[in-house]
């Protein structure tokens, strides 16, 4: 189900505005889980993440009569969620020790040490390590509970901006223009964040997936 501006979404919005609880429940079940996942990127506890989601839905309901359908309902919901989570995250950061927000930093050097240096006589700037293909991995092994647990673990460790871009682009699969607009980042910056986040995710998955490949 995709709620987009125009067409049947107007009927759906009409049901919401008329107080149709079934319509609201459908919307919550479709988008609520993704909103909770994204809220976890910005705040430190599950209880606060749930509060952020609840606050975002209430904000959405209060703004609903003015919703003009210039973006998809989904994109609008995520925008409200991010704004709510950022405000809540700022309050949390002001009242918690610096060490608890270490994830905001980013000094990771993607691929550092994997290449031969510029001075190498024959293979300058070539791979210094073996790079194995992952496309032979059966889907049930790639899309396994272990893989998903590893992804969830790493998302918690990524810098906030990388985690948000990765969640919205690769997990929720929003399109790049929607993500740029809702996070307020340029396409170029989004690409840099996505590049770093995917690189780190690849690094984190490597031991598990190469073990499955028999390495």
């Amino acid at each position, binding site marked *: 189900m995709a709620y987009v501006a125009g067409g049947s979404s107007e009927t759906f919005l009409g049901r919401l505005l008329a107080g149709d609880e079934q319509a609201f429940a459908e919307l919550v079940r479709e988008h*609520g889980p*993704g909103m909770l996942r994204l809220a976890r990127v910005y705040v430190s506890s599950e209880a606060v993440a749930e509060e952020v989601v609840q606050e975002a839905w209430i904000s959405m309901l209060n703004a609903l009569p003015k919703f003009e359908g210039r973006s998809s309902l989904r994109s609008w919901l995520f925008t409200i969620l991010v704004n709510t989570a950022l405000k809540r995250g700022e309050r949390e950061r002001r009242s918690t020790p610096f060490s608890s927000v270490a994830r905001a930093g980013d000094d990771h050097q*993607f691929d550092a040490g994997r290449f031969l240096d510029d001075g190498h006589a024959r293979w300058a700037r070539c791979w210094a390590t073996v790079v194995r*293909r992952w496309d032979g991995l059966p889907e049930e092994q790639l899309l396994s509970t272990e893989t998903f647990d590893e*992804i969830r673990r790493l998302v918690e460790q990524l810098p906030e901006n990388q985690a948000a871009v990765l969640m919205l682009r690769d997990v929720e699969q929003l399109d790049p223009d929607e993500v740029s607009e809702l996070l307020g980042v340029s396409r170029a910056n989004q690409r840099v964040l996505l590049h770093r986040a995917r690189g780190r995710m690849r690094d984190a998955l490597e031991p598990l997936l190469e073990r499955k490949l028999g390495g």
Partner: protein
Amino acid sequence: MLSCVDVADRITSYMEGELGAGARIAFEEHVVICPPCRARLTQLRATRTALGGVPSEPLPPGLEARLLEAFRGWSRQP
């Protein structure tokens, strides 16, 4: 001719379809003749596939109940 470092730097732009025609051709010319870079591309594609497969967990029942209660309160407003 691009180096392997250049290809690694451009891999997300390539996957995003954001390289211009000349840069895309240079990227693909390198990847065709370089097995490690070709393998690297399979790794990043598998990573993206795995991320897209993360299953959605239902909301905790308590939160869903609170949201429905909030909706009832909202819809009763004049």
